């Protein structure tokens, strides 16, 4: 019987192969890095793909301005450790320029990331953005290619995708067009946690159970922050929580948990009964096709 890679080795090897194809085919790629767990997996994969050389791309954070300070501090420290270049594309800059217009001052800014991302792509002339999206996250993602074509307006056309066969990726684009490459498409949330454990990846501490002031609103737990103040009559409680995804404060909710180590999170993930986005992404709960709509508009 022939030797076969374990499932984590297989997933890692596939992801390395995809990143190297991006490096080989694209002239000016960038890796989207949020400080979240999926993009931290991408960084480890990039190390395995390109060390002892430098990454053949900079890292880019699309910053909504609504961040947990721990995550930003962590992001900067990580970039320093790696000795790679970080580009920050700021939604607040887009607001100043007038390209992002909020409907109300405290509106969630996640959907406006698309505008800022597209502006940064144009400004820097990026022909490919490497992202940490996974197909198990959401049904629109289940049908997206590993190398996904976006037109000049950043739009994804689900009915008109390039066929993708074997491991032969076609990353060719005209000027202004863009490829979104997703090396961990075939990973599940469980795979991500198992990889974090195996590689002993350090994560921002808000991924682990900690005490936090929260209120309960429409079945979700909402953290109390300067951007998400309690509404009149809501009861502030100090509870043990952890975050399963990390993004804009106004649309990322924690879950009740005592899991303060990777091992405990894996146990909890194995027995969990609510999927990652359903539980903690307030922006996807709005409609059955919220993600599909956002992707068509240029979201990653």
């Amino acid at each position: 019987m022939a030797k076969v890679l374990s499932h984590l080795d297989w997933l890692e090897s596939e992801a390395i192969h995809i990143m190297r194809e991006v490096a080989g085919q694209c002239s000016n790629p960038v890796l989207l890095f949020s400080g979240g767990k999926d993009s931290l997996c991408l960084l480890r994969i990039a190390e395995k793909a390109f060390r002892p050389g430098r990454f053949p791309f900079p890292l880019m954070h699309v910053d909504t301005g609504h961040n947990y300070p721990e995550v930003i501090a962590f992001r900067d420290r990580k970039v320093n450790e790696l000795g790679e270049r970080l580009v920050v594309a700021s939604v607040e800059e887009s607001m100043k320029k007038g390209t992002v217009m909020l409907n109300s001052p405290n509106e969630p800014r996640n959907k406006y990331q698309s505008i800022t991302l597209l502006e940064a792509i144009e400004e820097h002339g990026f022909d490919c953005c490497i992202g940490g999206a996974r197909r198990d996250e959401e049904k629109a993602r289940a049908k997206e290619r590993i190398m996904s074509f976006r037109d000049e307006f950043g739009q994804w056309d689900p009915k008109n995708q390039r066929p993708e066969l074997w491991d032969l990726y076609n990353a060719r684009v005209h000027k202004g067009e863009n490829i979104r490459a997703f090396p961990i498409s075939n990973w599940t949330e469980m795979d991500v946690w198992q990889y974090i454990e195996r590689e002993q990846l350090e994560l921002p501490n808000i991924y682990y159970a900690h005490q936090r002031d929260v209120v309960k609103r429409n079945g979700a737990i909402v953290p109390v922050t300067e951007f998400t103040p309690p509404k009149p009559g809501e009861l502030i409680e100090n509870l043990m929580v952890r975050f399963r995804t990390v993004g804009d404060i106004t649309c990322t909710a924690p879950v009740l948990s005592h899991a303060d180590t990777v091992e405990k999170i894996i146990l909890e993930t194995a027995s969990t009964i609510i999927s990652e986005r359903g539980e903690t992404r307030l922006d996807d709960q709005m409609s059955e096709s919220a993600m599909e709509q956002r992707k068509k508009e240029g979201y990653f």
Partner: protein
Amino acid sequence: MTKKTNDTVLRFMTCGSVDDGKSTLIGRLLFDTKTILTDTLSQIEKTSKKRGMSALDLSLITDGLQAEREQGITIDVAYRYFSTGTRKYIIADAPGHEQYTRNMVTAASTAECAIILIDARKGILTQTKRHTYLSKLVGIKHILVAINKMDLIDYAEDQFKEIQHDYLAFTNAINLKDTEIKFIPISALAGDMIVDRGEKLNWYNGPTLLDYLENLDASEKNAMKELRFPVQYVCRPQDSANKELHDFRGFMGRIESGLLCVNDKVKILPSGHQSEVKDIRVGNDFIEEAIPEQSVTITLKDEIDISRGDMIVHEEDSIKSTKSFNATVCWLNESPLTMNRTYLIMHAARASKAKITHIEHKIDVNTLAKEKTSQLNVNDIADLSFKLAQPLILDTYEDNRVTGAFILVDESTFHTVAAGMINNIDS
């Protein structure tokens, strides 16, 4: 005892239409392996009710895009995941009706096993033959014929046997001797013989569908034993501050077949230069031996000019580069093939300009009949002759599912217009 498939990945595809219960089967697999999570379930309950159904409609689990829900069809291959602790599974779910050839070939290209669904009431249909032929064409070595809706024929053994008999008569006729074929009677709706055995099929002694998948030996994904190591990227840090890295040249890629060991004598194609492997690493870890599908970085003992697209093979290998070959091609694009136009061929890590010099014949996927043609349209399959501008290092698809495959790209639109599997290589 640990199972031989312990902690590996298995990729399979499902062939059939909604009418055969394909979506219900996938929904059942995910539901019974506890992959469906509460919020997805509540969404499905809501939709089931909205559509006036009394029971939970498991087929909704695979419901995808807005446009699909509106039209009640599926338009593209979807990928689904579940894990049993023994194995991680990746399902490529190809729609049965819409653009079936293009979607099936896409789904099959990465699959090691095909589950072909047959409605027990209807037996073998034209589409069953088509699914079988396309699975064979794309090199799938394991076919599981799942005879579904057994509940609707009172779980009758003789009808199951009859379908089995008919199917084998058909596969004997199309020479499927290298393919392992198994049959399982199931009811996706009732959940019989998928994950649980149920109580109605006691006359059947074989494995459940999940048991079959759990024990499938797919370690021989690629028949070829010879080393194929296409170089994807060359690492030259040229770090003058670090003496060790100053002259470092790492050749990065994935082992597509065979084994590569430290000290192996290798040659680089197409140049033919020879050297020996100095070291092999994955990240910071040095390893002695690299195995198929492993992405590695190697260094050589001699300083040789190697670039992306070069192929590293063992020194004694007789493989040569070539500029003409013929292949079975599936046309994927709405604009038809234009003879004498130049296309871009992407193969392993290398691209070359290519022209199609001759259409030998088109193949009818329903009857396998060969017919003369001068046109190739979307979803057509045909044998074509190719001429290349730059030489490529090719294998036949039968020998190697990676280095025997290629895609064609339109040079002006950059669309992927065709997928090809190499049959003969001219020396």
